[in-house]
């Protein structure tokens, strides 16, 4: 059904999105928990910083990543020197860009589900002998599982569609960083490739819609039929 070239693009997109979501998930959950449960000075600032990739032009996010994580960047330079890791111009860079762009959506979904967990249940667990960590692992975490799943699916859909930050930070290299949106954009630059573009667009629609429907279903199942992901 798919040509080998299309397969390469789809497989790369899935790999980039999957890795982006898996790596971002624990970070997003940690941030969501802190924002939902802790009161400290700077909480508003942290919340705003987490949401920054949602409101900034993606190209600006990509540029910021380049400055921070590029080979001459503050963190990227160290990664290259000390660990020999280079993020720009390869698929891990695309995954970083996708993960950063997905972060705010994932934090939002997870935060809502953590806030929906009755804190008094944690108190009840404590009186029964649970340490704060044990109460978190047995009460808060399992009860917020639907939000984790919804956040992951939403982040996955966002990662699949990531364009601006990826092309700015990781560039557009066939087989390395050319994910579905970048391949569609590349196809549009070449006259006579309308049918290839259309096929890729259909694949993108199917994958994204699928991810969104699954996350919507997960949220409704846990938070009631009036709850929404978006």
């Amino acid at each position: 059904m798919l040509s080998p070239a299309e397969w390469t693009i789809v497989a790369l997109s899935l790999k980039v999105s999957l890795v982006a979501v898996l790596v971002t998930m624990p970070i997003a959950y940690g941030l969501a928990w802190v924002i939902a449960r802790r009161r400290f000075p700077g909480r508003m600032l942290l919340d705003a910083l987490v949401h920054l990739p949602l409101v900034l032009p993606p190209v600006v996010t990509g540029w910021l990543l380049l400055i921070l994580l590029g080979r001459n960047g503050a963190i990227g330079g160290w990664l290259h020197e000390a660990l020999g890791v280079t993020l720009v111009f390869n698929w891990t860079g695309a995954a970083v860009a996708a993960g950063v762009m997905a972060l705010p959506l994932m934090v939002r979904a997870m935060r809502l589900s953590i806030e929906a967990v009755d804190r008094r249940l944690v108190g009840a667990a404590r009186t029964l002998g649970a340490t704060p960590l044990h109460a978190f692992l047995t009460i808060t975490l399992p009860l917020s599982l639907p939000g984790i799943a919804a956040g992951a699916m939403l982040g996955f859909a966002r990662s699949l569609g990531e364009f601006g930050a990826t092309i700015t930070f990781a560039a557009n290299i066939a087989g390395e960083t050319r994910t579905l949106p970048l391949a569609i954009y590349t196809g549009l630059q070449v006259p006579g490739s309308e049918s290839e573009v259309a096929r890729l667009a259909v694949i993108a629609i199917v994958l994204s819609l699928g991810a969104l429907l699954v996350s919507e279903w997960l949220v409704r199942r846990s938070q009631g039929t009036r709850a929404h992901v978006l």
Partner: protein
Amino acid sequence: MFFDVTIDMAVDDHRFALEFTSDAKLTALVGPSGVGKTSTLNAIAGLLRPQEGRIVVAGEVLFDSAAGVDLPPEQRRAGYVFQDARLFPHKRVAGNLAYGEKLAPADARFITQGEVVRLLEIGHLLDRLPATLSGGEARRVAIGRALLAAPRFLLLDEPLASLDESRAETLLTLIERLRDELDLPMLLVSHSSAEVERLAGRVVTMTAPGPN
């Protein structure tokens, strides 16, 4: 002395102070709504921190602001039966019962799950989720869950509220049995004077502070 409590608390703009001692097996805490009865139970369980004071139960200092003692709830080992039962919604009744039992030190346990199930007549509920239980059933499970956690004392927050007469009578008889058969100091919050009269060896009345 079973309970030796002196606390000064502030909860959501409501300030109150309470001082009582009791060596009765079951002590009742009575008073009008909003006077701080549940907050007192929360303070004894370690879920709320008093501004200052001292809480000693069965000889162990749980809280002492002057000495800097403030044991976390898991070390106080209160068997707290909440008014709303507060069962874990994602665990079946059996899982709720086992929660505290697994965490209790083996040598502190004084009752088995089988005994609790028989005593409370909840055997037919073990596979059910809390959302499907009636108020009386949920409260019986909550009592069982608290007992299995090997508590050193029991806190009962209006255990009979909003139960019909026959259910209330069943539970009342059960609390009497617990009082007489177990060696556990019990503190009960209640609105019903009949209930208090029948159960309590000592009654502590909380009053709203006058307008001064």
